[in-house]
């Protein structure tokens, strides 16, 4: 993962609640064994008509949404399945950050591990952003702030570890592999007492 600090981009809006992972990428595209190239399926059944032509009503197909890398989406974005294909598809499509008033747990965890920034802001700020697509925002990950064109800023909280990983491009698997001695120690304790519910740490 490449280190990531700032995202400066116009916003595209999907003002719908509960956009689930089947909407983000339908299951029939999950038979791939690769992670690359899924952007063309992002929002497939919404973005294209059945005959494969673009659906002009899909907000991201509209002219002012082109090239926008910040997606502002309705509450509870990414609910449903655990498919990591959803953040892979969004990243490959060109989205670098998703802003909502609520983001589903597994989606958020998957997204952050791939460098797709997920930001939860309060409802009134969220409503204002949703209603005003196309404005340019600057997301500062280290600061935890989103600057708006009028000079005001929205603060957001990001899990400290997730932020550290984004800023430094940290490889989380490497972090776990480094804990090998602790893991082995846990395993030996467990082997001696397999069903114990005592505190392990």
């Amino acid at each position, binding site marked *: 993962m490449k280190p990531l600090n700032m995202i400066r981009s116009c916003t595209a809006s999907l003002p719908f609640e509960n956009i689930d992972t089947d909407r983000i990428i339908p299951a029939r595209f999950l038979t791939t064994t690769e992670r690359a190239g899924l952007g063309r399926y992002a929002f497939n059944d919404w973005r294209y008509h059945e005959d494969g032509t673009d659906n002009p009503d899909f907000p991201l197909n509209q002219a002012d949404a082109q090239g926008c890398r910040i997606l502002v989406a309705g509450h509870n974005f990414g609910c449903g399945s655990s498919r990591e294909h959803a953040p892979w598809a969004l990243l490959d499509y060109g989205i670098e950050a998703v802003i909502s008033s609520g983001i589903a747990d597994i989606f958020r965890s998957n997204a952050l591990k791939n460098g797709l920034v997920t930001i939860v802001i309060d409802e009134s700020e969220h409503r204002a952003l949703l209603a005003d697509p196309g404005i340019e925002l600057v997301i500062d990950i280290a600061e935890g702030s989103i600057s708006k064109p009028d000079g005001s800023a929205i603060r957001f909280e990001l899990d400290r570890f997730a932020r550290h990983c984004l800023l430094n491009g940290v490889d989380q*698997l490497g972090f*776990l592999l480094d804990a090998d001695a602790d893991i082995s120690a846990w395993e030996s304790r467990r082997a001696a007492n397999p069903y114990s519910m005592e505190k392990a740490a």
Partner: protein
Amino acid sequence: MSPRTIIDKIWDAHQVRAESSDTPGILYVDLHLIHEVTTPQAFSELRSRGLKVRCPERVLATLDHSTPTLPADAEGRRPYVTAEARHQVDQLEANCQEFGIELNGWSSEHRGIVHVIGPELGATQPGMTIVCGDSHTATHGAFGALAFGIGTTEVGHVLATQCLLQRKPKSMAIHVEGKLRPGVSAKDLILHIIGRIGVGGGTGHVIEYGGPAIEALSMEERMTVCNMSIEAGARAGLIAPDQVTFDWLQGRPRTPRGADWERAVAAWRTLASDAGARYDNEVHVDASAIGPTISYGTHPGMVTPIAAAIPAARDAQEAKALAYMQFDGGQALTGQKVDVVFVGSCTNSRLSDLRDAAAVMRGRQVADGVRVLIVPGSVLIKREAEAEGLDEIFRAAGAEWREAGCSMCIGMNGDIAQPGQLVVSTSNRNFEGRQGPGVRTVLASPRVAAVAAIAGVITDPDAFQERAA
């Protein structure tokens, strides 16, 4: 020590390293379930880093999502929907071989939906941490395990280290008081609960279901309840293990034997939440007030008693959902014409579910123009159902009796409906396009689904039964 919930107990026991404000904790995983869809990229990552699978014996693998549910032909060729689907299955077989993982593949009687075979084998046990690259992993919580879905990157983490980086989730207690009325199933109960707390109501939480109505459920019913925890946004859902749990597990292929069994049960009895343990959230539900319940919208929180009218849209989102479903607020759900009925999925594909459907379909005919797919959850369940003659009941009624797999729950294997068709489905998700582009899905219990198959329209099962009597 202050009183702990079952969630605290399992969490504490599996913490390799505690979390701090800077870093998540390291949580040890007892059982890792894998299938063909969410693993290939994880194995590629291992390969590219030259890593091994740390504990192959803690990995349970099967084929379920992309697998055809029609049998192989005389030459043994299986009717995969695409070459890519076949490749995905071949890839899991090759990965398991390369990394030394036992696969419940095509020749195993335990091949089947990943959340059906874990319990069936007794691999799922109380007090365990269980993960799978699949959001319905919460199913295993029925046994008092902490079981949750993870993404593919995390599948790689668990393969390589048997651990996950995790922050402890919040806890929610759902107390279900009273008693379910006869003919009202666990599916009706969980649909009702999701309607109550909403599709985001459990976000960030692990739900513990408890109370007299939960204690009265069989293990199969408990699995149905825990299975749909994710549809309320919860990380996991679980139920404290009790004698029902132990009796169900005893003697299964992977459970301990003899003195080990006694030791295990003694430990499992200590899992239940301590009196006075604190939850971040508590919800009370009265089981006796629940009737047959179905969904009418495009997420599992849009549910209603089957006999009630379709609720009017409260906002633009619900109006959009109703438009997709081609329903109007105020209209009756009963009487809506049904095109396809699907009985299956990790929510409702166990023997008891098939029996529920067969009880309705015995000696009756599927209505003209309705296609009915009955898909058992595992090869073993298929055999057991056939030993009881359930397959004959389904076939005689005009239903299709399929091979085990996820099938029309997710439609990855080509088992889908046509645009605009209405499917009454015992699965867990009614998202737009889940069962094929433009397909309208209504979630229901096996009993309600079977009644719809016979009547050809959505029908209140209680009224149906009265008519039949």
